[in-house]
């Protein structure tokens, strides 16, 4: 029986060599890294090197007070594969490229039109230092141009583009925010289609109010501003939305309903013979923000009815376009799959057909609480 002391000695003798076998990450001081701010991926003009990668790199400063102007450097390289291009790009920089802070990935519209999204995705997912919570967006006309633009009044170390997506700066109802992990899920999963915000460029600022829905083997479908807003209401990505309410004859009420709390549920109702109905139930709570005519509190139920009517019209319009094109960014396919057993389920072709001919049921619960003015 070994004594306690010799047991401890034995333990140390065994554990110390074992510990040296463990390896942590590589030791690398922070000033030997260069941080990538954004990644842009485009289609290149060269035949044999289809991908063009542009990286926006931060230039570190010790004090942002002394140099408030944003400073970036850009490196661009085309390659046959993305990894190859990145390997070459590493030779353009004296420091290690650190992708951990790349918050935004912009993919050129041309590349998306050629259905290269899944290949790009593969690279982005496999590289460990690219964060799954980075935002992904489509760049128009090209990712490179979007990335290289620095608008007026941008803060050092926090590119203006990030403010559009981070839910702290900009909360517009027309901006879709897609994370990389969500984008991947939508790509892989059948029954829900990936949606990307489109970043457009003006002479001095960005413009993000449209979105792009990717469909397998088809041209990506662009959602205009209004539909992007409706998508955001239905997916409850936003906190506040405005709806324009107008009576048809032009003489009646015209006001803007400011919706500050929304709740939407959707489900698929399966009828016989592969017929389905899409049921969407939306609760809109808010008040009236702007009006052409004086509004009366006692007429609130009438205004609610107007809101219900307009919302119903717009949603019906939106869904009839979705179904006729055959795109499904809301995820009815997933809803259907989750409600049916696998042996009783339609095949994916049957589902697509059924989705195209689906009946659309929209239930709106309007709840305008005030006219927005004190009488």
């Amino acid at each position, binding site marked *: 029986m070994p004594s306690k002391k010799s047991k401890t000695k034995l333990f140390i003798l065994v554990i110390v060599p074992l510990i040296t076998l*463990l*390896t*942590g*990450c*590589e*030791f*690398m*001081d*922070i*000033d030997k*890294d260069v*941080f990538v*701010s954004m990644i842009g991926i485009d289609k290149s003009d060269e035949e044999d090197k289809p991908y063009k990668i542009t990286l926006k790199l*931060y230039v*570190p*400063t*010790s*004090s*942002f007070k002394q140099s408030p102007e944003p400073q970036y450097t850009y490196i661009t390289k085309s390659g046959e594969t993305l990894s190859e291009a990145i390997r070459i790009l590493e030779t353009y920089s004296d420091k290690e490229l*650190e992708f*951990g*802070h790349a*918050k935004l990935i912009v993919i050129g519209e041309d590349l998306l039109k050629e259905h290269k999204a899944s290949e790009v995705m593969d690279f982005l997912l496999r590289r460990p*230092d690219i*964060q799954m919570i980075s935002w992904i967006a489509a760049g128009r006309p090209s990712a490179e141009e979007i990335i290289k633009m620095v608008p007026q009044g941008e803060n050092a*170390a*926090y590119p203006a583009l990030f403010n559009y997506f981070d839910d702290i700066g900009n909360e517009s109802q027309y901006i879709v925010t897609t994370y990389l992990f969500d984008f991947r899920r939508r790509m892989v999963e059948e029954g829900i289609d990936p949606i990307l915000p489109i970043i457009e460029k003006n002479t001095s600022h960005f413009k993000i109010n449209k979105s792009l829905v990717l469909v397998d083997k088809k041209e990506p479908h662009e959602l205009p501003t209004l539909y992007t807003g409706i998508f955001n209401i239905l997916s409850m990505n936003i906190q506040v939305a405005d709806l324009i309410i107008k009576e048809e004859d032009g003489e009646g009420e015209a006001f803007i309903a400011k919706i500050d709390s929304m709740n939407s549920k959707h489900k698929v109702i399966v009828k016989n013979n592969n017929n389905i109905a899409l049921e969407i139930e939306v609760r809109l709570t808010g008040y009236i923000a702007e009006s052409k005519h004086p509004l009366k509190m006692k007429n609130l139920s009438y205004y609610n009815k107007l809101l219900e009517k307009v919302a119903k019209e717009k949603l019906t319009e939106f869904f009839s376009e979705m179904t006729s094109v055959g795109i499904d960014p809301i995820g009815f396919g997933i809803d259907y799959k989750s409600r049916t057993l696998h042996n009783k389920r339609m095949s994916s072709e049957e589902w697509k057909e059924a989705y195209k001919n689906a009946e659309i049921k929209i239930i709106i619960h309007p709840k305008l609480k005030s006219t927005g003015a004190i009488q």
Partner: protein
Amino acid sequence: MSSLETINWINEQFKNTNELVQKNLEYENKHILLFYIKSLINSEMLQKLIIKPFFEMSSEEQFNLYLQALPQFQEVQSKEQVHLEIMNGNILIVIQNEFYLLDFKLAKNDKVNSTSVETTIHGSQLALSDNLMTNINVIRSNYHQASLSVEYFVKGEVNQHKVAVIYDKEKVKNDVLDIIRKRLQKVDKQLITSTTQLGNLINDSRFSLFPQMIMTERPDRIVYNLAGGKVILLVDGNPQSIATPVVFFDFMTTMEDNYHTLFISLFLKILRYAGLFLSLLLPALYVGVTSFTPELFRTELALTVAGSRVGVPFSSFIEVLFMLFFMELLLEASIRLPKAVSATATTVGGLILGTAVTEASLASNIMVIIVSAVAISTFVIPVNEMAFSIRVVRLLLIIITSVFGLAGLVLGFFVLIMYLVNLDSFGETYLKIYTLSKNRKTTEEKT
């Protein structure tokens, strides 16, 4: 035991000192013999209580009774006791072949100090004194219980210091008391000069990183600990006491916690624990994040850290160790220095060195901020001994983090917790949240 023989024996024992006074008083068929060490006794009292009555009283018989009635009176049991008590400031009186000891000790160190280590805003500002009897007096006058017991031991072969073990008989755990008695008996040291030294000797774990006894100078804390069933140890000539057994959380409480209202003391407690974790983890976290996983920072912060490190010639862990080394030097220096100079030392060290180091880009600005934050948060830990332990553990965490990164830091912290769980203080688990359970039953059985 014949008186002549004993007197000779005593003279033999004290032959190496010239301080022993032997006084022969004879007056009107009364005769007494006094032995004492002049520098240890109160000669005023001797004059008033012994010499004056001796000349006033009519018979030796009366004087004998008078002596026995004095409160300082002590019966003599053995020769050894006589020797010891004379050394402790007693007077030996030989009258009619009888030996009496009278405690006329002169103590000049019985002034109660004001608190200097555990200062608080609320509560008593007085601490203990250097005198054991005064200290016991202070404790007794703060803790009015008949069950308060004091046991005396004499420790230190050469200096023969008195050690008092104080406890509330009804609340103390007998196992703990037994362990303390047993270990006290084992203590075999030439010199015992301080309470904490005695604490180390009876701890039985020389290599322990964490203190297993809590040192305190506050009577209110002593009383609080007594009521909680702890055992207090006092050494003569020391203004500090130690209490045992302790749990980790004892070191994170101050007496002021009870003096504030609930929310304020809760806030202070949260602040204190935040300080504890900050001082323990912040330097290691800096090394781990900057050198292994810069993704963890916010982008702005990562860029600022990277920018501020531009031109710094050392790796992050050398930078941290370098700055911490100077901070520790500064701390040590300000303890050792006389009070008048220590303020200058802090200014020179803290302000001038800090700015100069960044100017010369020997360390980054952020490093200086971290080191000062760590230094400040170390002082938040209320008991000094724990702050010392944390300073050592912090270094170990930095070393493991610079080898294994953040994973190493997590693992190291885990090992620290395992170590704390494994630790015990006189049979009580160290990381226990509850205070001692009362075992009144076993006490009744034993007594």
